[in-house]
């Protein structure tokens, strides 16, 4: 059976999933993909990283878009630093990404961000990057 079918079974029988429902299911599937990717490289990411508060999440999104963006580009398509889009990161172990964020990469222009981020927040950022980083809310 096509895996897609199984997800649709989650909706009540004999009804088409609602528009919102489809998006929700899509979200769950993307989440599972991210988890599967996480599971291969990191025990930490085998669990869903605890989500920061909405206010902190906004700060983190802004920080990544604007401050990481000064080297990696506002669109994260890269600049002096490499691209941070899902395609570019897919082959890299999430734990490595997390520690690159926290500790930087000595000998390159990537600085350590551990003073400004907890481990859980770095995990959350990696998970977001892997699924396509959110835009800033205006």
């Amino acid at each position, binding site marked *: 059976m096509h895996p897609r079918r199984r997800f649709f079974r989650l909706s009540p029988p004999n009804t088409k999933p609602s528009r919102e429902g489809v998006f929700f299911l899509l979200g769950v599937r993307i989440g599972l993909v991210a988890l599967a990717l996480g599971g291969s490289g990191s025990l930490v990411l085998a669990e869903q990283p605890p989500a920061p508060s909405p206010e902190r999440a906004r700060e983190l999104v802004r920080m990544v878009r604007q401050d990481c963006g000064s*080297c990696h580009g506002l*669109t994260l398509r890269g600049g002096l630093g490499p691209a941070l889009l899902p395609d570019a990161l897919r082959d890299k172990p999430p734990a490595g990404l997390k520690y690159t964020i926290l500790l930087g990469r000595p000998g390159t222009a990537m*600085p350590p961000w551990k003073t400004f981020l907890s481990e859980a927040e770095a995990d959350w950022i990696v998970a977001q990057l892997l699924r396509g980083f959110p835009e800033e809310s205006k």
Partner: protein
Amino acid sequence: MTMPRTLLLGLWMLFVWWSLLAWSAEPALRGTGDLGVIIERSAGRILVVSTSGNNVIGRVEGLGDLSHASVVFSRDQRYAYVFGRDGGLSKVDILRGTLEKRVVQAGNSIGGAISQDGRLVAVANYEPGGLKVFAADTLEPVADIPAAYGDDGKLSKVVGIADLPGDRFIYSLFDADQIWIADLREPKSPKVEKFGNIGKAPYDGLVTPDGRYYLAGLFGEDGIALLDTWQPQGGVKRILANYGRGEEKLPVYKMPHLRGWAVAGHQAYLPAIGRHEILVTDTINWKEAARIAVRGQPVFVVARPDGRQIWVNFAFPDNGFVQVIDTLTGQIIQTLEPGKAVLHLEFTPRGEAVWISARDDNKVVVYDTASFAKLAELPAESPSGIFFTARAQRIGF
């Protein structure tokens, strides 16, 4: 008898009214010497501003990804050439407030320059790494100079581009540790002169206001590469070598930027990398003259046009501050907090005022540079670079 006279009078009045109407419909003539543009980085838009009125006089949209954008001006100061992160090169008529032409000439670019005669615009690209040159009037491609290096011809990111007299452009290769000079006096067959082993990872460069010296800041080691373009056969020398004295570097959360504004009188004020200091070097003998401790990692270190003050902004997390140094005493005389995430500052042509962008407060603040009084605040969406048309007349801008 009386009727025709009344009619004549009526016709005459109609004529006067009509000509007044026609005259008032003609746009008011104005120059552009007191104008400039502000980048709204997340909106892909620029604001056209006046430094006489401290106000916004126009908006131009559709300029693409401006997350790292810079601007040069045509020599008549009417057109702004905007270099976007996404490889977009846009020509904007700032008098009409219209986008004249836009080409996407690369995948990822960092900045550009305009030639001495104003006929060529060169763009420094990260992807594909190299220099592309366009006709300033039409934006038609003129020359393509890939930054290929090493045996396998890999392409390097190009940084620190500036114009040199003689329709030449000078720039650095971040990945190849080289400085190149492209001579475009014959635009169809450019000549390139290459200088190797300049030091590790040049991140930006500047030409002194006389067009003589090129300095490339090095990210990968303590020191600055110096080339005397009047005597290039002397090769690249290292100045301010080992300024870190072997001490561990502090993290750098944003790359500093270099331009000819670093020079004040006979000294240049340069950001240290990984140290919260400004390095002062003599521009005659290029020896270290002083170092000034500042609030954070300096990003823009800009001399007021008269050279009496140096204004400095900082990388995250100190990016809410701006400090002012008196060049006579070398002391910090003022610390300002213009707003959250100060990204750039630009002086009016003669320096009586400075405009400062505060990205996260969505505003640009104008200060009087003598009294430090706030003169104006202009709303702007995530403002970054501020560029005034007086740059059109300066070598290296």
